[in-house]
């Protein structure tokens, strides 16, 4: 496939794909953040009883820090100007979550219960697979956004002789 066809392909499908990825992350992060805030005691207890965290200080700090970050990242993703920062934030959060779930699945001395919300219907290994998929979506979103930005700059330069 030559460069022109590749650019045509990206131009045609990347917009819709990117919009879908953005909507998925907004939906997941806002839902997760609000669930954690509404059921704050339950989330704190889950963290406090996690085999990975030894101290209740981490549990109390993370019980408000994580939902706050999720909301902030969602807002950054929604706003056009901060979308790339938001996508990088989503990537960072998914890396942290995937590492945590991977730690529980592969290294934890026992598997705790972390119940609550729709995603509690998944087992820990299923949760890990979901997180890996979301991680891949975040990477794809970033690549598509950067590619579209470069394409837009290139087309603008071709038509006006100036860069965006």
């Amino acid at each position, binding site marked *: 496939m030559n460069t022109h066809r590749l650019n045509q392909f990206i131009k045609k499908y990347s917009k819709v794909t990117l919009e879908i990825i*953005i909507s998925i992350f*907004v*939906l997941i992060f806002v839902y997760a953040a609000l669930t954690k805030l509404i059921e704050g005691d339950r989330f704190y207890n889950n963290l406090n009883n996690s085999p990975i965290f030894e101290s209740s200080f981490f549990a109390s700090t993370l019980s408000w820090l994580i939902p706050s970050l999720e909301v902030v990242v969602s807002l950054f993703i929604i706003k056009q100007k901060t979308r790339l920062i938001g996508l990088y934030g989503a990537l960072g959060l998914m890396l942290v979550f995937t590492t945590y779930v991977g730690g529980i699945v592969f290294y934890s001395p026992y598997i705790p219960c972390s119940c609550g919300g729709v995603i509690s219907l998944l087992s820990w290994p299923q949760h890990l697979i979901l997180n890996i998929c979301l991680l891949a979506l975040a990477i794809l979103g970033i690549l598509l956004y950067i590619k579209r930005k470069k394409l837009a700059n290139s087309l603008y330069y071709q038509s006006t002789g100036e860069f965006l």
Partner: protein
Amino acid sequence: MKSFKLMLPMLAFVLAIGAAFAFTSSTEVDFYANGYIQIDGMWHQVEVDCEQQAAFDCVVQIEGEPEETYQVYAEENTSTPLKGTAPVPKVISDPR
């Protein structure tokens, strides 16, 4: 066109808010009463994620009191002990 680009993420935002409130169980009457422990002869409700069948006894420890552990029961009697997935006591806030 620009507002349309914003519309889909905003719709997702609103849907997520609705879903969070729709799926949360915090308004149920027994949301915070998943089990009972006996302290000094008195029964107290506690919130733990334990069940009837699992590998370990469902045992809790009150935060700040590491020396005492309490078996969790499904009802206010000792005939239905609950089981848990963890071999260590769960730390909970004081139910008294």
